[in-house]
């Protein structure tokens, strides 16, 4: 317990300058996906996992990313796209903002019961994501830790609601990255 607290404190105060010249990274994140139910749209909270390949240009990392967002046992979302992360500062702890665009394959999005019959419908939608997080690096190590949260917004009109920009999902994730 005491050792864990000391380790956590060491992480907090370590004055680390990350390696001067990194070109790429691979990261994996896991956490939860949250969707609010609306009309016949299935909502819930379920496990989520994502991976990304990044190319670093200074404080900016261009990301090719994809993942699985399991909203519920009925609704499963696969997402893929391209994004960018902008890191602030040069220390061990680097807050960042992140965003991206991509496709969402939304399986079991709608669940309707009509005259005793259950209808399940899938949908592919185009969306954007935006969020923020923090990355913690370790001196001389290619490994770093990530924590981030994003909003995923659908950017086209579909039945049963016709809002142009509709918040569909929220993800909260923890993960790690290895860079070179």
């Amino acid at each position, binding site marked *: 317990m005491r050792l864990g607290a000391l380790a956590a404190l060491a992480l907090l105060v370590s004055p680390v300058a990350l390696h001067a010249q990194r070109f790429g990274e691979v990261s994996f994140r896991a956490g939860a996906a949250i969707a609010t139910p609306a009309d016949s749209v299935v909502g819930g909270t379920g496990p989520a996992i994502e991976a990304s390949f990044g*190319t*670093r240009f200074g404080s900016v990392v261009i990301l090719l990313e994809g993942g699985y967002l399991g909203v519920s046992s009925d609704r499963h979302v696969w997402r893929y796209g391209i994004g960018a992360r902008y890191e602030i500062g040069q220390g061990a702890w680097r807050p960042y903002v992140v965003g991206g665009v991509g496709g969402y394959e939304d399986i079991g999005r709608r669940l309707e019961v009509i005259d005793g019959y259950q209808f399940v419908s899938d949908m592919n939608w185009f969306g954007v994501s935006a969020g923020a997080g923090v990355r913690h690096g370790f001196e*001389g190590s290619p490994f770093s830790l990530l924590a981030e949260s994003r909003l995923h917004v659908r950017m086209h009109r579909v039945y049963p609601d016709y809002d142009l920009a509709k918040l569909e999902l929220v993800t909260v994730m923890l993960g790690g990255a290895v860079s070179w």
Partner: protein
Amino acid sequence: MRPPDPEVPAPAAGTSLASTAHDEYPFIMISTGKSSTRRSVIGALLLLCSVTTVQAQDSTRSVSPPGVKRGHTVRLAVPGQGRVVGDVERIGSDGLTLGTASGPRTFAVLPDTLWTRERSVKQGAIVGGIAGIAGGIFLGVIANALCEYDCGSSAGYAAAGGLLVGAGGAALGSLVGAAIPRWKRRTP
């Protein structure tokens, strides 16, 4: 290669790697000429000026390796020590200072070989472009084969597919290639 000239001052500590450069300069011939006092004085003066020039050249060579800037990651081949990798922290009159895994190290003179760590953008674009063109042609031909009415020529579909997917593949390849490091030799 001639034996060392007694009139040439011994190189300072840390500059031994460049000391052989003195032997390559023809001005030394003047100082080893006849025994005339005047010629010896002139020779000594010329030698003094020339040695200064050589040291200046060595210094320039050591502090300004081509294509190397602060923050770059470089790899050096150091005789007797193998290869040293580090980030350039400083390029000054005292040499090239690298931040290495074992701490900062300063090299007063440029070692035998120096590489810089570069991105593989061009290679990635070529690989991605070729793969994209091949895949695009294939998809174009498939799309034409699946077309049932009012279809254009198969060659048109293949060309359009190759062009579009090839361009996308090159863009994607260059992005991926930018994340893949390679060593580019800068000297010699």
